[in-house]
């Protein structure tokens, strides 16, 4: 018989947030209606803390909110000018590392990288050079294409294929600036990838790297995922977030 979850509170930018033991900072903030920006973390997959866009400061140290456990009475800095600057720089560098040409990308409007840049207010990006990589496309599969130039190495497809599809189609290869996503074969057609795999679901690849053929531009301009509401809108505007915040603390309250 498992013990009932211990409930405690901690502080996010001075606001009291309640959490259960075992929850990460991001889980607790999601529940409380506080949206922490993220790219590599998505509902249903194990967090890996690689994109660092969810960086927060806990008691003076920067940590990834998606993997760092919430603890009683800790002080979390989330929407401060310093943290926002880190996040903007991280997202900006992703734009410069790959080929993110929104006008000619079919993911535009539902792309989480693009939506994150909108949310963080990136419009004057002149501090880094564009690397303009020329990685080969993989169009061998009849239903799926891969454009590695758009990949942000979030690893969501790796985790979806490994943990949910149990196929291990994707894996990181290379190191440092040469790190990229490789497939378990000479090309995608040599793997057992199928269009119905969870890894090929539209919600898994946050950018336009995994392309489902014959489905491009399925939603018209104005009706795409992030056209009407910014990313994180659903978490910030979920029902009764205040009720969770004001819930009396049962244990560990100072």
């Amino acid at each position, binding site marked *: 018989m498992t013990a009932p979850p211990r409930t405690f509170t901690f502080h996010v930018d001075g606001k009291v947030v309640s959490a259960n033991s075992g929850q990460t900072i991001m889980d607790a903030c999601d529940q409380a209606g506080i949206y922490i920006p993220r790219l590599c973390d998505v509902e249903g997959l194990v967090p890996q803390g690689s994109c660092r866009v969810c960086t927060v400061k806990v008691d003076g140290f920067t940590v990834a909110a998606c993997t760092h456990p919430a603890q009683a009475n800790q002080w979390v800095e989330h929407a401060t000018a310093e943290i926002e600057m880190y996040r903007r720089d991280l997202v900006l560098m992703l734009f410069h590392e790959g080929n993110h040409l*929104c006008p*000619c990308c079919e993911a535009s409007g539902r792309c989480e990288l693009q939506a994150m840049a*909108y949310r963080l207010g*990136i*419009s004057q*990006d*002149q501090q880094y050079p564009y690397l303009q990589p020329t990685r*080969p496309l993989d169009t061998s599969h009849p239903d799926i294409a891969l454009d590695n130039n758009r990949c942000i190495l979030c690893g969501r497809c790796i985790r979806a294929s490994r943990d949910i599809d149990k196929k291990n189609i994707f894996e990181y290869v290379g190191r440092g600036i040469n790190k990229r996503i490789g497939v378990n074969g000479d090309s995608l057609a040599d793997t057992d990838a199928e269009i119905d795999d969870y890894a090929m679901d539209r919600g898994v690849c946050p950018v336009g790297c995994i392309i489902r053929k014959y489905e491009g531009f399925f939603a018209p301009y104005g009706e795409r995922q992030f056209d009407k509401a910014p990313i994180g809108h659903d978490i910030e505007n979920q029902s009764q977030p205040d009720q969770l915040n004001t819930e009396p603390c049962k244990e560990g309250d100072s």
Partner: protein
Amino acid sequence: MNRKRVATTSLAGCFGCHMSLLDIDEQLISWIEQVDFDRSPFTDKKQFTTECDLGIVEGGCCNEDNVHVLRDFRRHCKVLVAVGECAITGGLPVMRNAIMHSDDPLRDCLEEAYNSSPVVFNPQQHIPNDPALPLLLDRVYTCHEVVKIDYQIPGCPPSAQVIWRILDALLHGREPKIDHAMIRYD
């Protein structure tokens, strides 16, 4: 307010950003008392007549003429604004930089465009090479790789409202600010 001089140009772009500028519609009328257009496709002036307060550049640099024009704009304009994705990131023309695994990507690009494409009829296999044509650069450059750019307006094209808010602020000496919700890259 003193009358301001504005210059505009379209480099490796599609003129969509100029169309978006015209889309400002009747609000443009308020500029009649305040703004004179110098070198611009609107006036059809090909050279600067004097120094300008504001230069508006659409498109990146894909040939040597684009580079000359852009440097001329930098020399003559106090404030230079890059408008649209082509000017900021290179946009659609920059896709030619992604030609892969080739020792001579520019030749491969021209071969594909004029000879080997299945939809091209070109029995003489002639690639345009008239001396009057500006020479293509080895790759497409963004505006700020060539000159210093003071402000950027993202969008493909940016909406008339965004262009208006930023240009109007600059003409009146205010620091331009747009809401996050108005930022668009497509």
